[in-house]
């Protein structure tokens, strides 16, 4: 649906994007993560057709996004950063303007406006002047504008900025509801949000994709092969160490004494092995009390930190100005 092929973007001597490629299909929610200045907004602007890439190509449903490509742009609903709106119009006037701008007829526009007002929880504010809306309401109105005409691709630059916790939950629910029928690309620097709504994230660093991570909600937790385990157990120290080291597939253990006969152990398996059941059986047979047993997944935050600081040295060099 959306294909980004090796786009670069320079502003004078500054390289904002240094060869970013990815694809996103229908039903996918792709998150762009990255520290400030990593190129998230620039990437989204290029995708939405506001900025031309210095090189590379963006295609939406096979159509190249370009200066005269009004049909490619029609397939994209775009929520720009900071939700720019006309303050002197009323909410319904603004939506009517946007609806006609994307080519909806009068009747279709009326139906669509009612739909997006409902979806974004703005029904009671239709007559308010845009300039009087709070930050969160503005954000929702801009999102409502992006949804007009139900474009198959949604490009959302920090959709949750300025929303209160209740509204953030409503936004997540809305995105989940939209996800199956749409291709959604969003940027955020709120990592829990990315984990909650995205099924894939790209970590951008200095204009490059530093890391790509699938996020499988729920189902993914079942599989812990190759992940280190964290165990808290009450057992005699020597017997515990010996028994764990004797288990098949254990590569290394680290034991910390917590006092009172309790221990915390980090068990590193050989690649591809899931040791949870073996450890549980051992504890059961010996009659040791288990307080906690869980695989250690690297959190998105750990990945983020790893790829936005660790990769710094190998990042694209900025040409001297």
């Amino acid at each position, binding site marked *: 649906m959306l294909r980004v092929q090796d786009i670069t973007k320079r502003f004078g001597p500054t390289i904002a994007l240094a060869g970013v490629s990815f694809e996103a299909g229908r039903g996918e929610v792709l998150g762009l993560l990255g520290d400030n200045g990593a190129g998230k907004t620039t990437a989204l*602007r290029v995708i*939405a*057709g*506001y*900025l*031309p890439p210095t090189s590379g190509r963006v295609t939406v449903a096979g159509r190249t996004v370009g*200066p*005269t490509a*009004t*049909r490619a*742009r*029609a397939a*994209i609903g*775009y929520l*720009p950063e*900071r939700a*720019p*709106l*006309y*303050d*002197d*119009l009323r909410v319904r*006037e603004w939506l*009517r*303007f*946007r*609806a*006609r*701008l*994307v*080519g909806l007829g009068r009747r279709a526009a009326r139906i669509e406006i009612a739909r997006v007002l409902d979806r974004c929880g703005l029904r009671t504010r239709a007559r308010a002047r845009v300039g009087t809306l709070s930050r969160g309401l503005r954000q929702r109105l*801009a999102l409502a*504008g992006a949804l007009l005409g139900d474009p198959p691709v949604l490009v959302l630059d920090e959709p949750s900025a300025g929303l209160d916790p209740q509204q953030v939950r409503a936004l997540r629910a809305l995105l989940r509801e939209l996800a199956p029928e749409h291709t959604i690309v969003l940027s955020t620097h709120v990592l829990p949000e990315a984990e909650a709504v995205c099924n894939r994230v790209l970590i951008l660093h200095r204009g490059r994709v530093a890391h790509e991570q699938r996020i499988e909600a729920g189902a993914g937790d079942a599989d812990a092969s190759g992940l280190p385990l964290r165990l808290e157990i009450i057992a005699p120290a020597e017997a515990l160490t010996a028994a764990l080291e004797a288990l098949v597939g254990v590569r290394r253990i680290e034991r910390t004494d917590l006092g009172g006969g309790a221990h915390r152990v980090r068990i590193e398996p050989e690649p591809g092995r899931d040791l949870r059941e073996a450890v549980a059986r051992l504890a059961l047979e010996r009659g040791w009390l288990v307080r906690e047993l869980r695989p250690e997944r690297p959190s998105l935050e750990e990945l983020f930190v790893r790829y936005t600081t660790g990769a710094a040295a190998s990042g694209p060099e900025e040409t001297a100005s």
Partner: protein
Amino acid sequence: MSEASRLLLLRVLALGVTLLFGAIALRGMLAAVRRGLVHKELLQLFASPIAWFAIAASALVNGFLFVALLELYARTPNVPIVQIFFSSGFFWILQLALVPLITMRSFAAERTAGTIEPLLTAPVRASEVVWGKFLGAFVLYLALWLPTVALLGAALYYASPPGFAASLWALRSHGIVRAVPEALARIGAILDFGPVLSAYLGTALLGAAWVAVGVLASAVSRTQIVAYILAAVLLAGTYALGELPALVPADSPTLAPLREALSGLSLPAAFAEFSRGVIDLRRVLLLLTTSGLALFFATRAVESERWR
């Protein structure tokens, strides 16, 4: 090829080019209306104090001017009033001050507010956006001149014999088909329609050209103040072109064609003609071409904003 057939060919070509550009312009205007771009401009213009200020200023200045002209007319009744109106500096000063005021926000304000981004990523062409900006401002420009219709009515009232208004009103019993031409004929006996209509046409054409230049100024400016100043300078420049012929020595026969060509660019000269009831097609085309060129460059400026 004979002289006559060459001339015919040239005319056909000119007509073709005019029709082609006219069709392109019409297409852009219709698209801008259909996409709601003009409607939105008007909503925004009339939601701001600028529009009301401009209309009030125009009504005030024109009203004072009108009273002054009536005084003058009372003393020297043979001078055509419409001609004095346009040859007075007030008309030009007013235009020079108000046109940049109504065009300055068109693109500069969108840029400051960042709304240019969602506007240009919408599935519309840059030219349609420019047409929307132009038509919105042009409608407001025309609205500036609406109050003068009332002045015209007042002039008619005072110039007419007693009972004239009542006699016009009495015509309504004849039915609209007969009453309207009859009423116009009676008014025409008092007021010369020709110069009035051609003066309004000239004013509208001048507005089209100047508003287009103002939109261009706004399209290349980052803030509204810069847009205002740039537009005012450009417009003053187009007015100053009228002074160029005076710089060419009048007694040199070799420079006479140049002098004549330059005087074709003179806006005051054009308005001297319009206010006499003379509509010179070359003047009309010059003003229309200025609008077209300015809007073309504005479109390029907006496109380059996106594709820089």
